[in-house]
């Protein structure tokens, strides 16, 4: 077994959370984002498809989902960047027995701004779960669990997964999700009902090219500061919506391929988004053996290759749907991980790239965070557990975690 390293980031440091097929890693650097320290692996040997950092309300909590081949899929959290982690007595994300469904994997964790105790997760088989108590307990969102289209959703190559969760920043009752396959669905009533939102998004694997649903959407990113704008990377096709997903417009211009998996929005500029084109859905590697990120700075009107510091020969790489993210710094950092276990980062919005880490297992998840107040100190160390609140859990095999 590899030795586990730990990191102790400080307030203001940047986190890059990397989920791989053999565990989770925590990468951290100061604001300059040039020298990186690596913590992990956590959940050694198990795929980790979903990670998140919760710094709301003074927390500094890592979340990750472990998909154990043997022991099932479960969520863990850590308030000290992985040094200790919860071991839930009973798994918190479970389908009701009467649903007939069994959880295969957790593909996505989402922490909506403005709702500090709410977390969402997207799972396989496709469903959305919600926690309203900061992750202690979870329930399936009934409108998604019992969706009338469920029987018609089909698994893609990665399984039938709800992999993207995009809440509306100003309307807590509105959210758009994406699944493969099934496409985009949006709720405007807090999850009670979900309508397909795929108008203009084509499919190439069914007789009908523009069905109401059934698309294989790979990723959606919401534009910063313009909440009705969304970008979409499809299984063939790049799209933009300016009406919160009601309609989609093709924006695949001057890209070497409109096939790809990942997509990330700029944290401050609604006109800017990033992708990594992949040659085809059969080959699934970067075109021409060149590892290039493509960026639009005009809302998809055109795309430019970004290759400074990236290998331009024999780079047969694949970047999966959740393996790209941006940080919230200015200038923005952009990060992605490959199936060959490399993590690249840019501290200047994509102008130049640095190989942050290599030799990792295949990367399936890259998320970012900025360490907030209270970093590196547990509530006890900051002055004791607050009266009336239960102690935060540390490594507690067989004990149910209770903390907020």
């Amino acid at each position: 077994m590899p030795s586990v390293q730990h990191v102790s980031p400080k307030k203001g440091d940047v986190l890059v959370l990397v989920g791989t097929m053999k565990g989770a890693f925590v990468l951290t650097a100061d604001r300059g984002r040039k020298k990186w320290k690596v913590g992990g692996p956590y959940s050694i040997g198990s795929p980790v498809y979903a990670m998140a950092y919760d710094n709301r309300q003074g927390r500094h909590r890592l979340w990750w989902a472990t998909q154990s081949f043997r022991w099932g899929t479960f969520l863990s959290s850590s308030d000290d960047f992985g040094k200790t982690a919860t071991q839930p007595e009973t798994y918190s994300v479970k389908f009701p027995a009467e649903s007939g469904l069994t959880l295969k994997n957790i593909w996505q964790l989402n922490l909506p701004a403005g709702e500090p105790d709410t977390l969402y997760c997207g799972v396989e088989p496709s469903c959305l779960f919600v926690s309203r108590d900061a992750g202690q307990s979870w329930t399936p969102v009934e409108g998604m669990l019992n969706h009338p289209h469920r029987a018609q959703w089909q698994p893609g190559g990665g399984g039938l997964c709800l992999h993207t969760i995009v809440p509306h920043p100003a309307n807590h009752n509105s959210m758009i999700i994406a699944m493969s396959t099934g496409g985009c669905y949006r709720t405007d009533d807090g999850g009670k009902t979900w309508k397909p939102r795929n108008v203009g998004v084509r499919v190439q694997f069914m007789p009908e090219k523009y069905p109401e649903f059934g698309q294989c959407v790979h990723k959606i990113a919401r534009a910063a500061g313009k909440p009705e704008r969304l970008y979409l990377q499809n299984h063939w096709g790049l799209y933009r919506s300016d009406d919160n997903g009601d309609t989609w417009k093709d924006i695949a211009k001057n890209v070497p391929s409109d096939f790809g998996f990942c997509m990330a929005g700029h944290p401050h500029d609604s006109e800017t988004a990033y992708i990594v084109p992949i040659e085809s859905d059969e080959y699934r590697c970067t075109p021409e053996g060149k590892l290039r990120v493509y960026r639009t700075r005009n809302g998809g009107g055109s795309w430019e290759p970004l290759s400074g510091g990236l290998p331009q020969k024999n780079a047969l790489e694949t970047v999966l749907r959740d393996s790209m993210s941006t940080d919230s710094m200015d200038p923005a950092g952009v990060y992605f991980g490959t199936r060959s276990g490399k993590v690249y980062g840019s501290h200047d919005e994509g102008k130049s790239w640095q190989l942050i880490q290599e030799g990792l297992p295949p990367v399936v998840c890259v998320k970012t965070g900025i360490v907030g107040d209270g970093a590196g100190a547990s509530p006890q160390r900051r002055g004791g557990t607050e009266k009336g609140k239960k102690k935060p859990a540390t490594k507690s095999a067989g004990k149910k975690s209770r903390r907020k």
Partner: protein
Amino acid sequence: MPVTINIPSYLATFANGQRSVKVAASPANVSDALEALWKLHPALRDRVVDEQNQVRQHINVFVGDECIRFAQGLATTVPDGAEIMIVPAVSGG
């Protein structure tokens, strides 16, 4: 006679470090034996069976030398004083 349930090292973490647990009652079948085990060590349940109360795909349960997948599953009869083994299957990638 009590039934003995042997568990792998990973699961022992959730059973006070025990690799072997005796179930005092005489369970009629594997389902009853496991239910008795869950009562003693609740954290084992979700790790061994899924939401549909089925043994997880990559775990095997034996009664003596017999794998219950090739018998009557959780309804497999447990003889008095039998040994049950929960074993991680060959899996991974």
